[in-house]
């Protein structure tokens, strides 16, 4: 297993073996460790001292189900702190076959390059041909040039303009460039280093083999059984995808509505997972209610949304996108939500940050809530780089500052995903205290069978959930599998799986310790970057104003938050 270092200033590269004592570091744990060690915390995120780490999870490349995820880490231009964002798709599998645990990009350049990595070398070609194109067209041109068996990591026009909303995408198993490392403006950091696309060609590379096949297969058998037995992974996600959440969050008063002003939307049924499934089945054609983004994924939570003629509009339509581009904008028409989602995908922008930015703009009176055409036009402005588009592309916090709007649903500069935190206070604690900025995948608490509107006990629930998130994000396992993994002590089977794959004796406690250390490391980076407990708070209005749908304000005490935040002694 190797690290590949690519210097974008000088367009050269070198390889290093992964130290044996770091084989249990993958995904988020690895990106955060390397960023902490190698990037000055006070550096400019778009400057030469920042680095990008593209890292496989520990199990990525093993072909264990739902475990092909890759992480991108860097200092975030959106939050100013440490950031990790991960995605499914096929890049991890290809990277793994080439023997790379991580690819580290260094340096800075003004032009844009395509980086081509194969089993023999790394080479660079100018990216002029694909600059300014939408993602699908750029991906088509790259596949025509490099073949349809490669993986492609790609930024869009947003990344070229180094916008805070810029994401990085990669291909799903069917060649669609719609698997996003969405959060934290990672696409802007790629743009700052002149990386337009990374092609990974594993032609001629051998398939990865577990070091201890018997142990690996034993772990695999039990892991697969856990996925099959859990209702989430066996029934909910394959049938309804993550959009199954709409009814639940609406009932909890936690479906963000009209710029997070309340948590219940009068048209929620028309944008629900059930409605989406019904629409896809009715239209047929290329549409599909279930779809795997990674080879061999048993969960298949993705989908393909068709138009009225059955032609693909985009993939996937997820809960977060429905919440941020739908109810949060007062839009209750699923086709309109999907069209906004498609545009975000084409421009390679984070649907969460963009939906929140549009919501703040609507709150500030730039457009009316529910005005789909205005929302679409603002995205087209973003594509053109017009002043309003640049402002939207700067993210929700920037929109609020420019238009004098104090109701901005963001923490550490990063917009909240689709959970109104007054309705689910455990998630409010996560948003406030995680080093990652407001991010549900950093510590999801909605599944807890607790009173989500009570402030009591939420800090402990969030803290545990934050560690669960690090475990799955570091192993390369999909977040959807976290339920089965942490039910009935199944984590011991994961330890077996990991042990068999890397050929080291890894215990359940080793995995948990890895997660604890990762969280400590991320907080340490943020402290060095100047973060204090002042950044570990929700927006002021959420403490002062009632979410009428949940009939509550955010009232978890500051001193409780500080027990697990950036200033805590972990």
């Amino acid at each position, binding site marked *: 297993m190797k690290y590949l270092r690519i210097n974008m200033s000088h367009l050269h590269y070198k390889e290093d073996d992964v130290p044996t004592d770091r084989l249990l570091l993958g995904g988020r744990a690895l990106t955060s460790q390397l960023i902490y060690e190698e990037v000055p915390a006070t550096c400019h995120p778009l400057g030469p001292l920042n680095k990008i780490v593209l890292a496989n999870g520990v199990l990525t490349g093993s072909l264990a189900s739902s475990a092909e995820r890759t992480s991108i880490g860097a200092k975030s231009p959106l939050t100013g702190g440490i950031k990790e964002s991960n995605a499914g798709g096929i890049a991890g599998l290809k990277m793994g076959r080439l023997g790379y645990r991580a690819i580290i990009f260094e340096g800075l350049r003004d032009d844009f390059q395509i980086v081509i990595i194969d089993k023999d070398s790394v080479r660079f070609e100018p990216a002029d041909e694909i600059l300014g194109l939408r993602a699908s067209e750029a991906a088509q041109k790259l596949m025509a040039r490099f073949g349809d068996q490669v993986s492609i990591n790609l930024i869009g026009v947003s990344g070229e303009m180094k916008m805070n909303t810029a994401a990085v995408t990669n291909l799903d198993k069917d060649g669609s460039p719609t698997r996003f490392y969405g959060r934290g403006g990672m696409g802007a950091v790629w743009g700052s280093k002149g990386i337009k696309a990374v092609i990974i060609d594993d032609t001629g590379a051998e398939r990865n083999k577990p070091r201890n096949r018997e142990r690996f297969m034993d772990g695999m058998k039990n892991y697969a059984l856990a996925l099959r037995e859990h209702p989430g992974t066996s029934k909910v996600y394959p049938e309804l995808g993550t959009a199954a*959440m709409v009814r*639940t969050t609406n009932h*909890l008063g936690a479906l963000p509505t009209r710029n997070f002003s309340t948590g219940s939307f009068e048209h929620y049924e028309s944008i629900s997972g059930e409605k989406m499934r019904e629409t896809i089945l009715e239209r047929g054609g290329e549409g599909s209610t279930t779809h795997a983004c990674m080879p061999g994924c048993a969960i298949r939570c993705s989908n393909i949304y068709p138009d009225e003629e059955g032609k693909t509009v985009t993939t996937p339509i997820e809960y977060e996108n429905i919440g941020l581009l739908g109810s949060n904008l007062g839009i209750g028409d699923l086709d309109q939500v999907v069209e906004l989602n498609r545009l975000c995908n084409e421009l390679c922008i984070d649907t969460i940050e963009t939906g929140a930015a549009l919501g703040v703009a609507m709150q500030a009176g730039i457009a009316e809530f529910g005005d789909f055409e205005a929302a679409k036009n603002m995205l087209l402005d973003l594509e053109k780089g017009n002043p309003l588009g640049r402002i939207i592309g700067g993210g929700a916090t920037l929109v609020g500052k420019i238009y004098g709007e104090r109701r901005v649903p963001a923490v550490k500069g990063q917009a909240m995903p689709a959970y109104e935190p007054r309705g689910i206070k455990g998630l409010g604690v996560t948003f406030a205290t995680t080093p990652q900025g407001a991010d549900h995948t950093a510590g*999801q608490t*909605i*599944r807890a069978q607790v009173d989500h509107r009570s402030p009591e006990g939420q800090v402990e629930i969030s803290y545990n959930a934050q560690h669960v998130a690090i475990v799955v994000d570091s192993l390369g396992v999909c977040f959807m599998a976290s*339920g089965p993994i942490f039910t009935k002590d199944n984590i011991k089977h994961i330890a077996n799986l990991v042990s068999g794959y890397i050929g080291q004796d890894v215990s359940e406690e080793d995995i948990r310790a890895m997660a604890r250390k990762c969280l400590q490391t991320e907080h340490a980076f943020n402290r060095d970057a100047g973060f204090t407990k002042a950044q570990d708070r929700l927006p002021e209005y959420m403490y002062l104003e009632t979410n009428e749908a949940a009939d509550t304000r955010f009232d978890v005490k500051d001193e409780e938050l500080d027990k697990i935040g950036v200033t805590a002694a972990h």
Partner: protein
Amino acid sequence: MVSQPLINIRIQSHIPWKSDYPPVIQVEDNTTIRTFCEQIGIEWDVEALVFLNNQIAHESQILQDNDQVLLMIPVVGG
């Protein structure tokens, strides 16, 4: 042995594969919500997010006559 009096529990399910319930189910008095769920084939804290009278239920809550139980899909989001 003296049997407990029965109470009526109203039930609504948003879980497609766990929706074949009558609108009202009778259970013995002093039944907890967790026991009730297990009696109707719901594994506690695994197969459903359970609400009692519009609030998330705690497993030890004792059901009262005419209470409403709501079963929501148990997922962690996207």
